[in-house]
């Protein structure tokens, strides 16, 4: 029984800490940018690159070619996030991909050269 109470308290603590986060929301921005990519392999690369310091969440949708990103405007900017993604070889928003990096992408991720996702 003792353990049940501990588990309950742990969940209680979680909810308190979440209210702490809620107060920060004024600095939290949510944006959607176009990011070019092809497959789920691209998805991992794009999202890994998007998670720079200050980024809370990044979801890239292969169908819409859109990245939904939530970040803290005090810690980073949308441009920095786009730069980071472009650096891995993917066109992101207003930033064009690093040409050298684009050439090094696996053939299935070559979005400018007609690669198509079969799934």
């Amino acid at each position: 029984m003792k353990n049940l109470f501990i588990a309950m308290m742990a969940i209680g603590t979680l909810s308190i800490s979440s209210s702490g986060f809620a107060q920060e929301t004024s600095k939290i921005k949510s944006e959607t940018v176009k990011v070019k990519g092809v497959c789920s392999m691209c998805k991992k690369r794009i999202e890994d690159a998007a998670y720079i310091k200050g980024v809370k969440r990044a979801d890239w949708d292969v169908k819409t070619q859109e990245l939904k990103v939530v970040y803290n405007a005090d810690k980073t900017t949308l441009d920095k996030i786009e730069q980071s993604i472009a650096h891995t070889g993917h066109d992101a928003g207003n930033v064009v991909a690093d040409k050298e990096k684009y050439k090094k992408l696996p053939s299935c991720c070559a979005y400018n050269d007609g690669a198509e996702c079969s799934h």
Partner: protein
Amino acid sequence: MQSLMPKPFIFRLVFIGSLLGTFHFASAQDSKLEQTATLKTVTGVVSDAQNKEIMIGVTISSLDGKHHSVSDENGNFSISLPEEQQQLVFRYMGYLNDTLSIVNNSMTPIQVLLKEESHTTGKELNIVDVVSRRKTTEIGLTGAFKVEKIGSNELMKAACCNLSESFETTPSVDVGFTDAVSGYKQIQMLGLAGAYTTFTRENIPDIRGLAAITGLSFTPGTFVESMQLSKGTGSVVNGFEGTAGQINVEWVKPFEDKSPKWLINGYQSTQGRSEGNLVYNHSFNKHLSTSVLLHGRSDWMKVDMNGDNFLDNPMGTNFVGSNRWFYFGDNGLEIQGGFKAVVLNMMGGQKNYTEGTPQVVGNAWGYENQVNRLETWAKIGKVFPNKPYKSMGLQLSGVFHDQSNRYGARTYDGSQQSFYANYIYQTIINNTNNIIKFGASAQYDKYKEQFNNTPLNRTEVVPGAFVEYAYKYLTKFNAVMGLRADYHNLFGAFLTPRLHLRYAPAENTAIRASIGRAQRTANFLAENMGFMASSRAFQLNGTDINTMQSGAYPFKPEVAWNMGLNLTQKFRLNYRDGTFGIDYYFTNFTNQIVVDMEQYNAVNFYNLDGKSYSHSIQAQVDYELIRNLDIRLAYRFYDIKTDYVSGSKEKPLVAAQRAFANIGYETKNNWKFDYTVQWIGAKRVPQRYNEHAQHIHGSDYSPTYWMMNAQINKSFKDSKYEVYLGMENIGNIMQHPLIVDAQNPFGNNFDASLVWGSGMGRNIYAGFRLNLK
């Protein structure tokens, strides 16, 4: 037992209450974008414009892109959006996007037809599909059955290497040693022995009968693609057994894009266990493919970490080989078939035991185990290309199992021949919201057992028929009603009704309930082989089994009713996703073969006279704390009691409480770290002999203990190469003494079956995996 409602039930409500608070905060921050406006719900079904096939996974969104939905497995969708949104966009890979205007206040479901894009230049690209950030274990929100999907990534977290060892990171399953000499591990669900769980390989019954304990070792982890675990009674389509739940194992399939051509695995532990696995997949063309699967294992080192002069784990070899074939016709015909062969040879017991040593006082006490097993199976399926909702299938399997065991002077041999056939026909009534399955099955089992000189033979023939109706209302409500009627040659006719309900009050919430009957014939010797590693007398209804004259099966079938209630809630907290689940199951036996070990020098089997039940409650949170750092916390509580001859008692050697935490972290450069810690509560240890004080010790409780496992994994070149290093039982926590009166194994007080803790000490292992395309 004072009342049917267990105490933890009250806490459960408090639990949910405190949790709702958590969600409140979570939704408060995420709903910032959404101004409160009157929402309307649009429902409908999406299908292909040309062949009218329903389409799964079509993305439906509002024109402003703020509201999304996806069509389900029947092509149905439901989307909520503000009143002022007048248009919906339908998207699917390879199809033209479609934008539709919707009429306000129209409640009728809409029909959507999507046109395929004209085929562009058919250039084939070598696309590697990497599943990124898919949870290693998922609990779905849809479907009437609560199913835990255990993926291959979760299986890789387990140190080693076969089914009995792959549940280390699954809180729903308890794994424990059956005894101190054989090294076999037994699983438990809802606190009930593994034999109460139905094991299926791709929905064909797999481990049944004499292999109830040994069979788990015969499915190497490398063969496994994923597992689906569900608690409570399952679908009637799969039979009338499965009191506690069902575990289905899907093997690697040669025709799937994600399957590598070669899969090679090697493993070595400091406890002298070497393993090698090889899987070869080949597709001849788009119709025909095959897999060859091989497994070899050798335990070659004498390990006695607790110094009791008994090997902690027997030595020997185990080989498993399998070949399977798949054929997919153009007209919806599917045929598959295969076989699996197992050869196992193990020897253990006292350290200086050699094969054939006479088992008399003064000599070394020995353990021997040989198993030869052949499984064959075939599936023939037909889907109607014009009517994808209509299908039929025939499942066939045959099992030949032969095992011999020696536990000191005691011998136990058994053989089993089983045949199984199951025909299933599926169609719809009016629309895909009403699915009906019906069919017939037949099960044949011939058992020949010999315990010392006592033979026990029986043949079971069970033909049966079943019908299952599944109803669905949008994504809100599901009901599955099943009924089967079977005729058993020994026990007569019986009905098996089962009901499963699911209600989704919100998009991220599912509440499920189930109730059902289950029946099985207990193989009381094979399922309790652990007791043979002792001087306990084996008794049937209080009479020594060796004096038994009649060879007829001495008991009634085991019958139980299982009911369950559970809640699954997905949530997003601090921008990270999580799942919370709580479930409660109650199993009530109307008859059970009671295994009574309350007397220190006997194990007595008899039909239940009175009550036997199990209450199980489990709460689990899975949450991605920070990106790529997953935590899983779980707690479970059992209340299991049985009326023994000596009165109502808690089930022995089962921990009423267990707490569990798992942390997994994956770096961007493909390092994986995994750590599991478990707290195992006290278990009731029945009466036993104390060799130091030379008296009989009454029933009391074992100490609680902690178990910790850790693993590091690094993959290279998009998971083509993988190496791992891990440690089991980091604290080196072992039960002392593990064996009662280990000095006198031929004496009257020897007992290696009272195992409540770990029989093995700290183990370090390393291995590699190659996935070659």
